[in-house]
């Protein structure tokens, strides 16, 4: 892994994108490395899809620079090394899964073996079905198969697990991890933070067109240095109001939750107030907490 991260495959420098009068991306700079999963997260309208479309060459690039494998987005030599799964409402109805995959394989120089594509996308049992008869999740898997069938060195996945049930999602995650091991770089957007947390080597958080934070999932989670202290106590909430001012206290009945940036100090204070404490636990912020908090900060 450490070695892989040395190899840069794409660089995006100071890219801004304006639609009519509104900026959808503002001064975005980032790199993509070989064999990493890079997640782009952000609320709706943050610019995730715009950023992906810029890298795919579907939008014109007027401010900034993008080079992927040393090539301009959108040129066919680059497309032959990439796969992309976009959000689509319909596939041509009257073609079978097999026909779809074989057609897309022909576009590539060194396509992945057909059987392997089918296996990785979990399509074994429905190879000969018309796409008309596929469920939402099965269609997603077919689109995924089309995106990987060319053995891409760089794979774009825009909301890949939408409409998938939990089993399909888990198997998608396994496949993504396997592709990564083989050296494929994966750029992922998702609404499922758990997905990003499990899969990503790095996360880029966008809000209102800007990168507001980037790092490993752990770095992002620990960038919020507050911890959650929870316990049960029959002491009344009034007794705890003297805690440091940056702590927030929530109490429902005997259940207390205190957010603290200095856990040791806060715990000392709590025990100074009362010994009546049970079920004590200290947990780190989840990615979701970090996500909400960082977005809130950037909007202020």
């Amino acid at each position: 892994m450490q070695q892989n991260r040395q190899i840069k495959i794409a660089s995006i420098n100071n890219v801004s994108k304006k639609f009519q009068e509104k900026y959808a991306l503002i001064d975005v700079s980032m790199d993509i490395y070989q064999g990493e999963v890079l997640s782009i997260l952000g609320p709706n309208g943050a610019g995730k899809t715009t950023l992906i479309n810029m890298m795919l060459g579907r939008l014109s690039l007027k401010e900034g620079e993008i080079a992927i494998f040393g090539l301009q987005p959108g040129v066919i030599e680059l497309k032959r090394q990439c796969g992309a799964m976009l959000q689509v409402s319909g596939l041509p109805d009257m073609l079978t899964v097999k026909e779809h995959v074989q057609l897309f394989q022909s576009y590539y120089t060194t396509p992945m073996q057909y059987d392997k594509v089918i296996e990785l996308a979990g399509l074994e049992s429905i190879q000969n079905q018309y796409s008309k008869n596929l469920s939402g999740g099965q269609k997603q898997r077919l689109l995924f198969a089309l995106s990987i069938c060319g053995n891409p060195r760089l794979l774009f996945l825009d909301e890949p697990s939408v409409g998938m049930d939990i089993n399909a999602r888990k198997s998608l995650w396994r496949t993504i991890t396997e592709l990564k091991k083989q050296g494929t770089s994966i750029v992922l957007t998702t609404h499922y933070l758990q997905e990003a947390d499990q899969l990503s080597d790095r996360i880029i958080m966008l809000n209102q067109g800007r990168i507001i934070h980037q790092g490993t999932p752990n770095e992002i989670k620990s960038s919020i240095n507050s911890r959650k202290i929870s316990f049960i106590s029959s002491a009344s909430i009034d007794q705890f109001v003297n805690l440091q001012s940056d702590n927030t206290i929530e109490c429902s009945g005997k259940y207390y939750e205190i957010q603290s940036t200095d856990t040791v100090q806060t715990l000392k204070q709590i025990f100074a107030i009362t010994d009546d404490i049970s079920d004590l636990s200290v947990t780190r912020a989840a990615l979701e907490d970090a996500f909400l908090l960082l977005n809130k900060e950037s909007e202020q």
Partner: protein
Amino acid sequence: MQISTHQNILKPSLWKIYFLESKTETLRMLRTPGFSVPTLLFPVMFYTFFGIIFTMNAATMPTYLMVTYGVFGVIGPALFSFGVGIAVDRGQGWFDIKEVSPMPASAYIFARIVLTFLFSLAIVMLLFFMGAVFADVELLRSQWLLIALILLLGSLPFCVIGMTLGLFLKSSSAPATVNLIYLPMGFLSGLWIPITLFPDVMQLIANFLPPYHLAQIALKVIDMDVGANLWLHIGVLLTYTIVFIILANRAYNKKDKK
């Protein structure tokens, strides 16, 4: 730090892509009989009614209308397969998937031209069969062949017009809009009623319509045209083709559509 650049100088086989793309596009169409059967039968049915059963002049009309309904017949698949087909693919987002894939844009066009030719050929054969068997149309073998060839190649300008429509129209309105262009344009070009029966003003209008010129080229083979210069007709069709290629190219390469 290393920077990885592209390394594939190899290219996939273009002919294989053309072949597979045409095959899948054709399969897709054959499996949608709700579209393919009416497209095939419409011109033949019209010809049978107005050219054979209710013909005004049994000596010349069946021959004349066989050719003009042939023009009508080959324009249909060209306008619909390109116009409606592309608009629908675009509406579903499928066109986007194709666009970001390494499919050469030429393969998409090639496949639809193949499809159009297959349909056109079937329609022309059906019309020839009806004409020869039920209306005693008698032509030289070279005339049958030449007319078929003119009709097939003559569908190309309409492929280009269809492509432009497909890139501009919304999928929901495309079928109605294409029909609104197809049917009046066919009528005004004298494909259903011989142009010489039209008032002068309408004959003048026909000069601006591409089906009129294709019909005149095909009618020249059997000396039933109005007698204008062949190159005038070819020139008009070429002009239409070039103008619409430019428009289609502009529409396709226009980014930031959304």
